[in-house]
């Protein structure tokens, strides 16, 4: 393969489809969609931002976290408490919550990644459950089991963004930033380092990569995405409670990223949108749709290990390029 071409053109070309899709998504309000559609789309978008963080962690570094919703929760509670106690608004809460989630990720990550491997996933699960217990027992400070209200409005250049269409556009903008950030990570030398760790930890270490530090780094990066998603969630819902951030929401986040496919940049977007709109399209009640998600997850893992988008991309490549399968696989492994 021509290396210089790969380094220059190919990355940009991989970003383009996502940008086109996001541009189309941003044009949706022109067709005057229902409020219900907009709310669903906003929740999906907020999830997608968190999912981009999870895809850096799972897709690139190969670490699966079962506590991602807890990181989202730290962001949401940080925003709510800052607004209540210090009168801090949305825009200042964003960096503050991102930092809070990143710090929490580091606090969780250092002991969890030290024990490594199989145990990490259980440790993150336990920290997620612990956070929910702490928030529930936090008394007035965290609002106990009922949670906290966020009544502030989001304003941008003097315009009130609380209107659904405006909030929708803002979330689409944030999703775009998250997608571009995740794309930049994937195609940077940092991304290559993370993938080296994913493919072979010992080999990566022997090349002088500080595996432990980079794993914690990836976890912290996923925390930044989660924190921002948490702020958007808190201001959108206007009310947050501990059960939203316990381990079951984390399972659903992991499910979304894996259904979409964690390694490709389209994956989180597809996973988030699919899981949000599938019940609407198929006209399922919440219980039935959960069963469908679970079956989808099992089917995707058994049949399409790269996720839905990965599977589609692979099938398309198989159709359009006459190359034998082994060569395609080799090309993909290099990505």
């Amino acid at each position: 393969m021509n290396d210089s071409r790969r380094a220059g053109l190919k990355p940009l070309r991989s970003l383009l489809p996502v940008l086109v899709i996001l541009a189309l998504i941003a044009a949706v309000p022109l067709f005057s969609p229902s409020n219900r559609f907009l709310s669903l789309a906003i929740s999906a978008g907020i999830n997608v931002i968190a999912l981009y963080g999870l895809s850096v962690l799972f897709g690139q570094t190969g670490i699966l976290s079962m506590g991602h919703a807890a990181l989202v929760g730290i962001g949401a509670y940080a925003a709510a408490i800052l607004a209540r106690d210090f009168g801090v608004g949305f825009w200042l809460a964003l960096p503050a919550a991102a930092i809070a989630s990143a710090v929490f990720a580091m606090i969780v990550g250092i002991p969890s990644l030290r024990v490594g491997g199989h145990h990490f996933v259980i440790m993150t699960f336990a920290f997620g459950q612990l956070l929910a217990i702490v928030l529930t027992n936090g008394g007035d400070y965290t609002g106990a089991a009922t949670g906290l209200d966020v009544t502030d409005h989001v304003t941008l250049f003097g315009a009130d963004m609380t209107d659904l269409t405006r909030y929708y556009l803002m979330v689409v903008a944030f999703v775009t930033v998250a997608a571009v950030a995740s794309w930049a990570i994937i195609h940077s030398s940092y991304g290559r380092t993370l993938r080296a760790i994913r493919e072979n930890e010992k080999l990566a270490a022997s090349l002088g990569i500080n595996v432990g530090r980079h794993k914690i780094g990836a976890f912290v990066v996923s925390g930044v995405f989660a924190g921002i998603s948490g702020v958007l969630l808190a201001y959108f819902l206007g009310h947050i409670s501990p059960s939203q951030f316990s381990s079951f929401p984390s399972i659903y986040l992991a499910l979304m990223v894996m259904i979409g496919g964690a390694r490709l940049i389209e994956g989180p977007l597809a996973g988030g949108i699919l899981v949000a709109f599938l019940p609407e399209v198929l006209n399922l009640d919440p219980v039935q749709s959960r069963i469908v998600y679970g079956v989808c997850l099992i089917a995707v893992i058994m049949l399409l290990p790269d996720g839905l988008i990965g599977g589609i991309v692979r099938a398309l490549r198989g159709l359009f390029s006459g190359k034998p399968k082994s060569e395609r696989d080799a090309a993909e492994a290099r990505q």
Partner: protein
Amino acid sequence: MQQVSIAVDIFIQQILNGLSIASVITLIAIGVTLIFGLTGIINFAHGEFLMIGGIVTWLAVSAGVGFPIAVILSILAVGLMGYVLERGLFRFTLERPTNGFIVSLGLIVVLQHVVVLFWNPNQKSIPRPLTTVWEVGGVRIASVRVMVILITIAVVALSFRMITASRYGRALRASVEDRDTAALMGIPVRRYITGVFVLGSALAGLGGALLIALFPITPFTGGTMVMKGFAVALIGGLGNIYGAVAAGLILGIVEGFSAGYGFSQWTDAYSFVLMILVLVVRPHGLFGGTSGPRMAS
């Protein structure tokens, strides 16, 4: 003096309460630890197996079947479910245990909501199979709790006996120690993996039946219970059955105390905090475990 004797009463009662819950947790932990030791699969859906065991017992008792028969039915039903799931799903993930773990996440969601779909999400309970309460020197002992503890001791002792004394048990331990070498020695490791799934599931079925004899359960009970099962399995050292039983005892006593001495809202947190602390200090658990089967890659 009066004060002291009351304190002792509460103390003994709380230990008994703690131990009866710990019994159920130990039953999960044994399944979790064996399945992990042999396959490297972290089966999070094991808590749902337990929940299904409870539901089967509830259905049977509601249909007028006696509790002992209901227990046997739920052991059989959940054992069969374990067999089907291993043959149908987990078998294909043996090369990549992470996929097995993800499949178990999907199973959690599916099993919970299938139960909700058919039997609504509300609490389910059965009349206590044993209602006698013994008074021994002012200590009130509910016979149902003693029953749970005794059944668990019997089953755990029987499992130990099978694992330590029979040649199947020796082959099983050899497979947990080193799957490839065991296979080279002519042990049908694949069949043992199926066997362990069935055994682990059957123990979870029993655990569910015993749990519903103690408390009402909901379709979502499995989540908390499996985390405690994992906490116990990790504290004891994954793959180490003795460790799981010892850690189960420790956790039961700690939880019993915390419930009895005014920190009940933090009860669920203890197992997690204990697990995190133990893993940070001793990553392979208090009693040492395996880190799962060595992978070919």
